[in-house]
């Protein structure tokens, strides 16, 4: 395990490890999920009404993150395949049973879950109306196909975190997109492996309301939002 972690750290130098024992040693072949889990553990364990939405156009990494969150926290997830124009909706109320090995199986097919609803991507935004009081987390494999849908979801739903994968594909627009996210009350939290960006709503980072940031156009204050210290929260800062 030490050797594996060591190699992992070399491959992803910005990755911060946490105790894998608490999570059954589950992680994907890439480090993003571990990184996200470390920061989202608190939020995911304290709330039942959390839904992950994965907007994907990359056939190589299907279900990469939503799968992991579902397995550990039993969070509902909606997987949107923008290439195949297909939605897979996996909700607790559908009594999902997991088959196969306990290890994360990348490249899974849809038969991995029972009772997941599959349907065509037609009126996805209106479909989200049936989740009135839920917190959404977006996992986006970023490209031109997903960008409009991505911002439409942000306008309609209370999105708490955004994980943008593969943003190099859209690099010439990314700064503009980041500024737009800042104005919507998101704080840039970290860049993993030089390409994947993780954004979190301001109230989750230091308690200051993201609605206030949006209302008063305080996006440029975002980079000054103070991250919690690593250990002693009692130190005045």
């Amino acid at each position, binding site marked *: 395990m030490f050797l594996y972690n060591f190699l992992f750290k070399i491959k992803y130098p910005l990755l911060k490890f946490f105790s894998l024992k608490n999570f059954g040693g589950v992680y994907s072949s890439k480090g993003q999920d571990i990184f996200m889990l470390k*920061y989202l553990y608190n939020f995911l364990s304290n709330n039942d009404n959390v839904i992950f939405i994965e907007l994907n156009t990359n056939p190589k990494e299907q279900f990469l993150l939503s799968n992991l969150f579902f397995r550990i926290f039993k969070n509902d997830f909606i997987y949107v395949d923008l290439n195949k124009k297909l939605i897979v909706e996996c909700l607790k109320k559908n009594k999902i049973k997991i088959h196969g090995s306990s290890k994360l199986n990348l490249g899974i097919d849809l038969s991995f879950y029972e009772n997941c609803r599959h349907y065509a991507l037609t009126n996805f935004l209106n479909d989200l109306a049936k989740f009135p009081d839920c917190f959404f987390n977006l996992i986006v494999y970023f490209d031109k196909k997903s960008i409009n849908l991505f911002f439409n979801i942000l306008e309609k739903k209370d999105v708490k975190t955004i994980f943008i994968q593969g943003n190099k594909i859209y690099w010439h627009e990314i700064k503009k997109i980041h500024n737009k996210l800042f104005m919507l009350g998101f704080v840039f939290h970290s860049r993993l492996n030089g390409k994947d960006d993780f954004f979190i709503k301001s109230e*989750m*980072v*230091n*308690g200051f309301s993201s609605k206030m940031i949006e209302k008063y156009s305080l996006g440029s204050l975002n980079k*000054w939002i103070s991250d919690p210290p690593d250990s002693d929260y009692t130190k005045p800062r």
Partner: protein
Amino acid sequence: MTAIKLLKNVPNAKIIAHGSLFRNKEYADYTNIFWKQILKWCLKFFFRLRIITKKNKILDESEKLGLISSLFSIVEDSSAGETKYPFQYNELYNLSLGAKDLVDYIREHKVQTVYIFNGRTAGSYLVAKYCSENDVNILYYEYAGHSNGFRLYENIPHALVPNGKAFLNYYKNGVYSLPGLKYAAKIIKAQKLLHDVKQKTTANTNSQYDVLIFLGSDFEYTGVDPSLTGVRWYGNANFCKQVISKFGKKKYAIRCHPNSEIDPNWPILYKELKGSLSFHEEYIDFYGPDSEIDSHSLIMNSRIAVTDLSSIALDVILLGKKVEIFGNTDVKFIYENDWLNNQGGEMADKIIFPFALVHNTPVFRFSLFEILVANILYIVHRSFQKISN
């Protein structure tokens, strides 16, 4: 430094101040006047500070609450007034007149959003009140420790319940290290249970009580506007009467607030309190502010403790005893919150976690350069203060 930072980061922002701020003494401010003038001219030259000049000359009675609040805090005397402290009163009166001029400016220029320090003091209360009553957006800034950042509140800092709500929301949904939080909670719990007052009160009691009443500090909340903060101070006598009417004929202990010891008006208030409770005298033991009996010993020997606005309610919970909180406080909101109650574990263990995060929220950092400048300014400020002294 905070005002400058906000000026740089908030679109279409202007920095304004009243001239009286550079001539008068604000809360706990003994800054040298010459240094104040240097600061004023630097702000004018580099940041286009707009100085509002004096127009108003009289305050109505209803406009004096900020003045009273600042006066009580400065002199720590619940009977403070114009005749007893004429110098401090006049200084604060001028600051309040300045705040009234600022309100006129906000009204005339139809300012949409105001960022102001604190909101309770002589120099800020009238602005906070005007904005609140006239739907003008207002955000309050406060210091964050060690001058390395500032806090930005959407509710006035003394609005205990909304701020308690924000702490709990952050605790529930925040992004932070759980082992780090556990470590901090351990430290803050130890600090809370071994605070300065406890070191002075070392004696224990064996008397048993049905109800233990903790009194509040008269000069702390008298000057707080309930319409802005949701916090109302009815006075200790009224509070005790409410408690006794609720619990009936029981054995009571009444513990006075340790701050009352420094209040010159306390002997009069104490006499009035005892007089108003004489109908129930035989069932009440009083423990004055100078009593050496440890409050924690009283808590452990009582069936229930009752508080109004005092933060000792948190001590009671941490000691695993039952508490009833009459006032609208952050401790009450968090203690009675359904979500927290439904989480596993004892309340005595879990309630400290949201409070361990208090130093984190909602802090905005200064840059390294800003911290450097702030520290240099602080050194110069202290030097001027020494010269003044």
